[in-house]
């Protein structure tokens, strides 16, 4: 009975991890902007990888393999946000702007001649 419950729980975790990985990959392909793509890709690293590895740990039981899976999980949990942060910072530093900032900038450009005309008579 206990083994059955563990099996069902690990199946749920594996299926949920597969779902999150697929959704993150879809977002990585479909999102319009670099920063939104970063958001989608970080989803696969945290939820997808975490759920799949925990599901595998439940399948492995109290063995050395479970410890190795735990080490992989801890390492991914520490390094994935680090590399994502470095990537976003490098992109911001090199001049990539979010889509909303670019839209606001173009709106400001469209408004600029009108405000000049309003300012000129006064």
């Amino acid at each position, binding site marked *: 009975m206990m083994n059955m419950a563990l099996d069902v729980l690990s199946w749920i975790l594996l299926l949920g*991890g597969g779902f999150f990985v697929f959704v993150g990959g879809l977002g990585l392909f479909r999102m319009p902007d670099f920063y939104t793509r970063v958001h989608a890709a970080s989803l*696969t690293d945290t939820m997808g990888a975490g759920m799949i590895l925990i599901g595998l740990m439940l399948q492995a039981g109290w063995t050395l393999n479970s410890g190795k*899976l735990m080490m992989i999980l801890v390492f991914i949990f520490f390094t994935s946000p680090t590399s994502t942060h470095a990537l976003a910072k490098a*992109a911001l530093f090199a001049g990539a702007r979010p889509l909303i900032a670019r839209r606001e900038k173009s709106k400001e450009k469209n408004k600029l001649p009108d405000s000049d005309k309003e300012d000129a008579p006064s």
Partner: protein
Amino acid sequence: MYTVATLAILVTMALALARAVLGPTVFDRILAVNTIATKTTILIALLGFLTGRPDFLDIALAYALINFIGSIAILKFFKYRDFSRSGWLEPDAPHPHRMPNWMPPEVIEILDNNPDPEKHREGGK
């Protein structure tokens, strides 16, 4: 269940590969390659369980270690064009090694007028 998760990971790797080919900037490509590498780690672990050989976990562990160092090294190279440069820059200094070949012209204009990205994001001049 292993098969479903493996198939989801393979589909995600294909989508990330398409993004790496299509990606307009170099950072999109780095992001896609980084995603593929993380997915490879999980794929190796899953294949070990799928084929009944959990010894593959050692390979997955080594791959996770290499992946992080590689992505940080590539990012440092594309940020500074130099592996030996320190990460510190003066707050008001202009960026020493920009990449004008892929940036749109309005971004180059913004950066020339306003080298500090934080100031521009707040809307100040």
